[in-house]
C-alpha cells in the first residue's frame, strides 16, 4: 500500500473543506436550527410524542442522517468529478497508486467531512432538545458506516457524471426523496398498512431505523436487519468501484 499517496489525497481534499470552513460549519447549524423551529416548535408542539419520544427529539436521528447522506454524496462526487472536469486526473492515473488507494483518499476525506457535519448537527440539536443516547457505540458505528457507504456512492456518481447537472441528479432525484420517505420525520408505523409494506423497499428506512434505535432503543425494523442492509450497501458500492477501475469505465480510455 502507498499510504503516503493516500494521505496526500486525503490532505488535499480536506484542504478544500477547510478553505470554506465557515460555510461548511454555518450551513448545517443554520438548517438544523430552522428544522427545529419549524418541526420542533411550530409543528412539534401539536404532535406531542411519537412512540413515547418527544417529537423534537424523535426527528434528530433522521435529521442527522439526511445531512450526512447528502453531504457524503456531494463531497465524494465533487471530489473525484472535479479532477475529471479540470483534467488533473491525469496525475492520479499516471501515479504509482491502485484503485483502493485512490478510493481511500477521496472517500475517506468525504466521509470525514460528512462525519463533521453529523457531529455539528448533533451538537446543535442538543441545544434545542434533551437527548440521551441509549447505545452510544452503535450510534457511532451507524454514523461511520453511513458516512462511508454514501461517500462510496458519491464516488461512483462522480465517476459516472459527465457534467455538473448529472452530478446533482442522483442526490436530488433519488437520495433526497428516499431519505424524506424513509422515516426521517415520522415512524413508519404511522403510515397506512399498504405503505408500511411498500416503504420496506426503501433501503434508507433500515439506516434511519437502526440509527434511531441507537438513540432511543426503539426501531421500525430489527436492528440486525439495519446492519445487514448498510453492510450489503457498502459491499455493493465497493464492488462497483472495483469494476470501474478494472475496466477504466469513464476514467481511462
Amino acid at each position, binding site marked *: 500500500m502507498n499510504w503516503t*499517496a493516500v494521505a496526500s*489525497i486525503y490532505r488535499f481534499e480536506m484542504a478544500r473543506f477547510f478553505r470554506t470552513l465557515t460555510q461548511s460549519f454555518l450551513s448545517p447549524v443554520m438548517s438544523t436550527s430552522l428544522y427545529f423551529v419549524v418541526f420542533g416548535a411550530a409543528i412539534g408542539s401539536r404532535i406531542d410524542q411519537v412512540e413515547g419520544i418527544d417529537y423534537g427529539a424523535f426527528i434528530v436521528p433522521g435529521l442527522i442522517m439526511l445531512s450526512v447522506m447528502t453531504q457524503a454524496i456531494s463531497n465524494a462526487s465533487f471530489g473525484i468529478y472535479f*479532477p475529471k472536469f479540470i*483534467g488533473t486526473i*491525469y496525475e492520479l492515473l499516471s501515479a504509482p497508486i491502485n484503485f483502493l488507494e485512490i478510493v481511500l483518499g477521496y472517500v475517506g476525506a468525504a466521509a470525514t467531512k460528512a462525519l463533521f457535519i453529523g457531529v455539528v448537527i448533533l451538537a446543535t440539536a442538543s441545544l434545542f432538545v434533551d437527548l440521551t443516547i441509549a447505545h452510544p457505540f452503535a450510534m457511532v458505528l451507524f454514523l461511520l458506516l453511513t458516512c462511508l457507504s454514501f461517500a462510496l456512492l458519491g464516488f461512483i456518481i462522480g465517476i459516472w457524471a459527465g457534467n455538473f447537472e448529472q452530478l446533482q441528479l442522483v442526490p436530488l432525484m433519488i437520495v433526497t426523496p428516499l431519505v424524506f420517505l424513509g422515516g426521517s420525520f415520522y415512524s413508519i408505523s404511522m403510515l397506512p398498512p399498504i405503505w408500511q409494506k411498500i416503504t420496506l423497499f426503501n433501503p434508507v428506512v433500515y439506516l434511519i431505523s437502526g440509527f434511531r434505535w441507537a438513540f432511543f432503543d426503539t426501531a421500525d425494523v430489527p436492528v440486525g436487519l439495519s446492519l445487514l442492509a448498510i453492510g450489503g450497501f457498502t459491499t455493493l458500492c465497493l464492488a462497483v468501484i472495483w469494476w470501474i477501475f478494472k475496466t477504466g469505465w469513464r476514467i*481511462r480510455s
Partner: protein
Amino acid sequence: MPAILSIRDLRKSYANAFEALKGVNLDIEEGEILALLGPNGAGKTTLISTVCGIITPTSGTVTVGGHDIIEDFRAARSLIGLVPQEINLEPFETVWNTVRFSRGLFGKSRNDALLEDILRKLSLWDKRNNKIMELSGGMKRRVLIAKALSHEPRVLFLDEPTAGVDVELRKDMWNIVAELKASGVTIILTTHYIEEAESIADRVGVIADGQLLLVEQKDQLMTRMGKKQLEVQLTTPVAVLPDALAHHDLQLVNGGDALIYTYDTRGERTGITALLNDVAQAGLVLADVQTRQSSLEDIFVDLVSGDAS
C-alpha cells in the same frame, strides 16, 4: 547499455476503429534526450499517455527500467514524470500545496528543501503561496514542470512543454533540461519547434499516422538526409542559362543574379568543381559563393510528406 524505456509493437485502437498507434517499436537509452516530432494527430500524445498509464494499450508491451507498465505498474510509474500538453491544475490551491501533493502522490516522503530548490529554479519560489488561478499561463506551465520534477523521475516526458510560452521560459526550460540530462535523467519531448529538437536532442524520432517513421541520432540524420545548396552570385545578371551549364542541376534566381546548385552530401562527388569550371568557361564572373544546409525542419517536412529517399 540496456534501454531504460522499451516499447514493443505497441498498438492502440479505439471503439470507433480509429488506430492511433500502429505497432510502435522504440528503445530509449538512459540519460539521452529524444525529441519526438510529428504533425498534429500523429500519435505523439497517445504514445506518451500509454507509457504513463493514462491510456490502456490494445496490445504490445512497454517496460520502464525493466518493469512492465501493467504487470509492475507501481515500479514503472514511480520512475516516470509527465508534463502534459494541456495546463491542467487545481485553480483554488496554492503552488506549494499543488507541488507537495504531486510528490506525496508518488509515495515520496516530504522534502521541503528539494521542492524549494525546484521552485527557485523555475522562478516560482516567490509565488509559492499564490493560488494557481492567480498565475499567468507561463507560470502555470512552470508549475506543471515543478509537479513532474517534485517526485524525482528518472524518465521525464515533456509533451509540447514550450508551446505558447515566452522566450524566457523556453530558455529556462532548456537550462533545466540540460541540468536534468547531466544528472542522468532520460528525457522524451514532443515539440512543434523543430529548432528546439535541433538544439537539445541527442536523437530524433519522427512519428506520423501512428507509426514511427524513423529514430536516428540527430547529427547522423542531418548528415544522411540533409541536402546542401550552393549559391553562386554573378557580377552581371544573365537572362537564360548558358548551354555549357545545361547539364548541371541549376536554377536561375533573383532575376538572373544568382545560380542555385543543389547537391547531395551523401554522394561520392558533389560536382562542385566541375560546375565552377563550367561557369568560368561560360564566361560568367563570380561575385560571391555561399553554401546552405537543409535544417531538421526541411528533413521533417520531407519525411512526413513521404518524399524521403
